[in-house]
């Protein structure tokens, strides 16, 4: 498999891969049996890769999460939808390309699929605005969620954004208001909502489609309150301290699992989802169907109550007279 895009911590693997490639070519041209050496080298490479990826720092995970070949929302949709029709527009003059959605069939079940969409190369990324949605994107997402609510379709969202778009037009059109309304309205939905952080989850821009009954996250995905770069330049007064900020902010799956923010961390193949996108698709599909099965057993009221309770319990405070938590006086 040709790999054009290497992360710096993957460099130790390059030598090994080159050797493997060379031996393969040799074997192709001659009659010498090299399968033994190949196997050895391949095992070694796999082990190396596993070691490297098991010990990734938060800053390195961000690099994996932002990998241009990491499967995107549309990739996943293509992988597990037998039928899929993209739906466009916020009915208010905009069709954001960074936040897409549509209706699809997974197994026997119709679902609404919504997610941020990044591009693979510069040209695509410009069209997709690097996965940074404008207010029109969030309003389109809400329109589709309301549609799903009306027709009793479970909602699956895919989070993959550095953040909501910060620009003149976005402010003019009410970026804050658009996200805020989504946060509130998602509590009202009577259908199950499952959100998955497939790449990077950047702050409010991620949360704008992330108020869900279940929040899943891939092993090398990250979810941040503020980008480590911004955090470093504000708190450390030095953008170069982004790796320190990335570690301090607790942005990885296991961290967020222990903080009670995330419900499940989905394993990735060594080397990340970009190494085996089809496998990633299988893992995600299995998890989505499993959680959906659980959620579909709840009544509409139970579902909404559980969603409220889930978010209600988030946060850590010291209550010096915890016997009086009650709200009535």
């Amino acid at each position, binding site marked *: 498999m040709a790999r054009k895009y290497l992360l710096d911590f993957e460099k130790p693997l390059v030598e090994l891969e080159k050797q493997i490639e060379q031996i393969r070519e040799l074997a192709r041209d001659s009659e010498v049996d090299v399968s033994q050496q190949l196997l050895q080298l391949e095992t070694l490479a796999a082990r190396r890769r596993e070691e490297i990826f098991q010990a990734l720092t938060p800053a390195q995970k961000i690099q994996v999460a932002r990998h241009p070949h990491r499967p995107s929302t549309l990739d996943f949709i293509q992988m597990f939808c037998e039928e899929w029709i993209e739906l466009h527009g916020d009915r208010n003059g905009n069709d954001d390309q960074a936040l897409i959605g549509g209706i699809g069939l997974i197994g026997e079940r119709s679902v609404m699929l919504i997610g941020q969409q990044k591009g693979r190369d510069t040209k695509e990324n410009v069209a997709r605005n690097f996965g940074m949605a404008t207010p029109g994107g969030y309003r389109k997402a809400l329109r589709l969620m309301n549609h799903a609510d009306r027709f009793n379709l479970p909602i699956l969202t895919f989070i993959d954004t550095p953040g909501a778009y*910060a620009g003149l037009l976005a402010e003019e059109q*009410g970026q804050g208001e658009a996200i805020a309304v989504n946060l509130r309205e998602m509590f009202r939905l009577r259908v199950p909502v499952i959100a998955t952080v497939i790449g990077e989850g950047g702050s409010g821009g991620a949360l704008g489609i992330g108020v869900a009954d279940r929040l899943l996250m891939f092993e090398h995905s990250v979810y941040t309150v503020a980008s480590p770069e911004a955090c470093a330049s504000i708190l450390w007064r030095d953008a170069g301290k982004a790796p320190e900020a990335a570690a301090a902010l607790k942005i990885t799956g296991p961290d967020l699992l222990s903080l009670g*923010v995330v419900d499940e961390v989905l394993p990735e193949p060594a080397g990340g989802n970009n190494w085996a996108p089809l496998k990633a698709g299988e893992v995600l599909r299995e998890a989505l169907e499993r959680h959906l099965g659980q959620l579909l057993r709840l009544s509409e009221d139970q579902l909404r109550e559980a969603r409220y309770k889930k*978010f209600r319990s*988030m946060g850590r405070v010291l209550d010096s007279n915890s016997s009086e938590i009650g*709200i009535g006086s």
Partner: protein
Amino acid sequence: MSLFDWFADRRKGQFVGKVSQETDESDGLWCKCPECTQVVYRKDLIANSSVCSNCGHHNRINSEERIKLIADKNTFEKLDQQLSPTDPLGFKDRRSYSDRLRESQAKTGLKDGVVTGICTVEGFPLALAAMDFGFMGGSMGSVVGEKITRLVERATSKRLPLLIVCASGGARMQEGMLSLMQMAKISGALERHREAQLLYMPLLTHPTTGGVTASFAMLGDLILAEPKALIGFAGRRVIEQTLREKLPENFQTAEYLQEHGFVDTIVPRTQLRPTLASLMRLHGSKKIELKKK
């Protein structure tokens, strides 16, 4: 520097400005308006709701002063004062989060950046939250989120209208994702308040930005703002960097937001109480006697 330049500088007020900035934070009898440099008697300024009588500049006030300006005398009953922040991530940048907390607590006399309670305004009962910008930039962590959520829930169960005075730089980074989740938590509580057909009004004061703008600040049935308050989602510098073009002069001011349809009405601070009372009356609130303590 030529003589002409010197005069030009003087006219721009830079020369005077340097001196004035030192004095306006002092606790002296007199203070200078940071906007128009008019010198006023401090007591007069406070009597005028900390609004400059010359240019109308709204000086920043803390949560205590804010509550005093809104609530009928001696009616404000504080809630959930027992809640204080923890350091869930063990966060440390150049300084530790717990140090920063202690410093802000000492400076403001508050446990965290919001004061919540129930009061009356011209006799109308109101659930009121006032954020305090002096406490770590009014940033929203778990305590701010929890106190506001509890207030919203109480307003819902007691069928009270709700006012949240916003003043915040956004989510508190030191509590990581727990801070971000407060946006969702409060929005969920507001959904229930709304479902109960109760009136919610945020008052956006200088500055209201980031995660607060992207949640409860923009969820009002009616959205009020103070004149010239900075209100926005992203910071101006970030936008300038991505756009590399000049932004409109009044960009992200209350007036700009009103022009674009995101603020119902801009209320000068001196008119706040009568405006609130009138809005509550118009929405069917009935006057009550709150038992004075």
